[in-house]
């Protein structure tokens, strides 16, 4: 009787100890993962930072102007191309009533 109880406790201690080590290693692995991920996030953020600087550089208005003139059939809008909602002819039905006076480009 006494022997069995002892055996039970020894077994329990062994199982719990094993479980504890399992959890410990798992936590250790997870912490390694976390560190790696955090490092990756920081690296990603640095990449983003570099890319945003490059984006700003590539969007230099002089460069865009030149590219637009070379590749696009667009020209700067002139005053004649600007109208207001008030300037539009009314529809026959009473379907108007939008806010007047806004600038509308065509």
């Amino acid at each position, binding site marked *: 009787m006494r022997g069995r109880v002892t055996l039970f406790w020894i077994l329990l201690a062994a199982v719990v100890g094993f479980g504890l080590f399992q959890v410990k290693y798992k936590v250790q692995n997870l912490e390694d993962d976390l560190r790696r991920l955090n490092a990756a996030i920081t690296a990603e*953020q*640095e990449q983003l930072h570099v890319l945003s600087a490059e984006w*700003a550089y590539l969007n*230099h208005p002089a460069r865009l102007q030149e590219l637009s003139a070379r590749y696009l059939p667009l020209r700067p809008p002139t005053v004649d191309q600007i109208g207001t909602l008030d300037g539009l002819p009314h529809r026959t039905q009473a379907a108007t009533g939008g806010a007047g006076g806004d600038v509308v480009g065509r």
Partner: protein
Amino acid sequence: MTPKPIATAHLDGTAKLSLEVGRNRLLLGGALFAVAFAAIAFRLADVSVIKTAGEPGVAAAAPARAFTAGRADIVDRNGVILATSLNTASLYANPRHVLDAREAARKLSRVLPELRAAVLLSKLTSGRSFVWIKRHLTPRQHNSVLRQGIPGLYFQREERRIYPQGRLFSHLLGFAGTDGIGLAGVEKKFNDSLRAGAKPLVLSVDTRIQHILAQELAAAVGEFRAAGGTGLVMDTDTGEIIAMASLPDFDPNVPHRSPAKALFNRATLGVYEMGSTFKIFTFAMALDSGAVRMSGGFDASKPIRVARFRITDYHGKNRWLSVPEIFMYSSNIGAAKMSLALGTRGQRDYLGRLGLLTPASVEVPEVGAPLLPSPWREINTMTIGYGHGIAVSPVQLIEAVATVVNGGIRYRATVLKPLGDQPAKGRRVLKRRTSREIRKLLRLVVTGGTGRQAHAPGYLVGGKTGTADKSGARGYRNKALLSSFVGVFPITAPRYVVLVMIDEPRGNKRTFGYATGGWVAAPAVSRFITRAGLLLGVAPVDEESAQVRRALRIRIPTAARGRRGQNIASF
């Protein structure tokens, strides 16, 4: 189960007594231990089950370290990056670790063609333990050097300030030195907060508007082979500077490659005798104080002689001129007489309230102090009436013009975008009525006066030309002019003020040799407004509409005083 017979003994006397004592002591000790264990058990349960002290139930993950690249960014009002810090790799070598210097030099010069193999070889065989090969590699160069796998080469992470917009904001931004300390411009003014990192510094400028202004300014400076120029755009209702350009400029990425004079910020540091644009203030002061009425006028038929000075008109009409005509034809004689009507004290008070006697409060370290006459005699009062004998910076001028046209409220010039939505704080310095009258006069200059070339269809430009003789070491030099135009649009309800100033322009065939503000600076303002008006959110209007005509109607009295003048609202 049969009960076990219990052995009993009967003890008497001292033996029994001592046994009783021992039993009692044992009981007491046991009780003490029981209490102690109970306390420990209770505490154990308390700590591990009931309270959540000590180890938290759920482990908190270590947060990702927020990425910082040293100095904070500077962005424009729309968030476009104007200055940023990048971590770059700098390549250095430890020649003692280099195995094959010849091979290493050959490989390096292949991936970094700007480095010569012979120079590299001498560096790599120098026997020292540290030599820089190249500072601040681009990510691509970094990668290609890494792929060569040369032993003995190492990288040092360094921070570098980058200005993606190049020359566009050179004077406003200034620059930061290699050690990350701001040495000029906003970089210097806000050095401490920028170094603290964290949030980007948001400026009031707009990159698109800045580009248009810089381009038109450069075109004017180029066309008239001028020594330089400056341009400013200001929001009349907040004092925010939307664009600020000064030529010659420099590339803040490599400021040391530019001549020292290119670092000079004409918009804020330079102080100039502005010439006729100052008449805006002369008229505003005289009308506001009541010294002069719109229906009045002055005799401008003869030059004024005071002591050794002689005040003459550039666009002389040689007759009696009404107040609107004096403005329209930019008569110096009329303006001088008008200043006398107001008086020296009144002039000084008004100029002070308009901020023209103290340095501008704009947030750059390079702010020029105005040059004032001392003592302030009557002759100074007269010359200041048409913008000579007092020198102010362009940013002071535009701030004061904004004050005059926006209804008379002074907002301090700023290069910072205000936080939140609270309206800018201003101080009233002129009557609303004065502002309205000046606006009509400014429109008159563009419809029928010296500033006709500033006309930008649909945007109702008003403005004033200025042409000042530059003073040199020996008095005023002829032919060295400072030609400017300050434009306001739309004049019926001003939103923006634009100043273009060209330093020492030379007239050409197109301008029939003229290099005055109306010929040189006014067309640049016209082109700027035509291009930038829509970006600035100003809706073009029909300039011939009855509403506009009514708002700008002005009576010009004729020489015969008191008679009803002709109506010239239909210019």
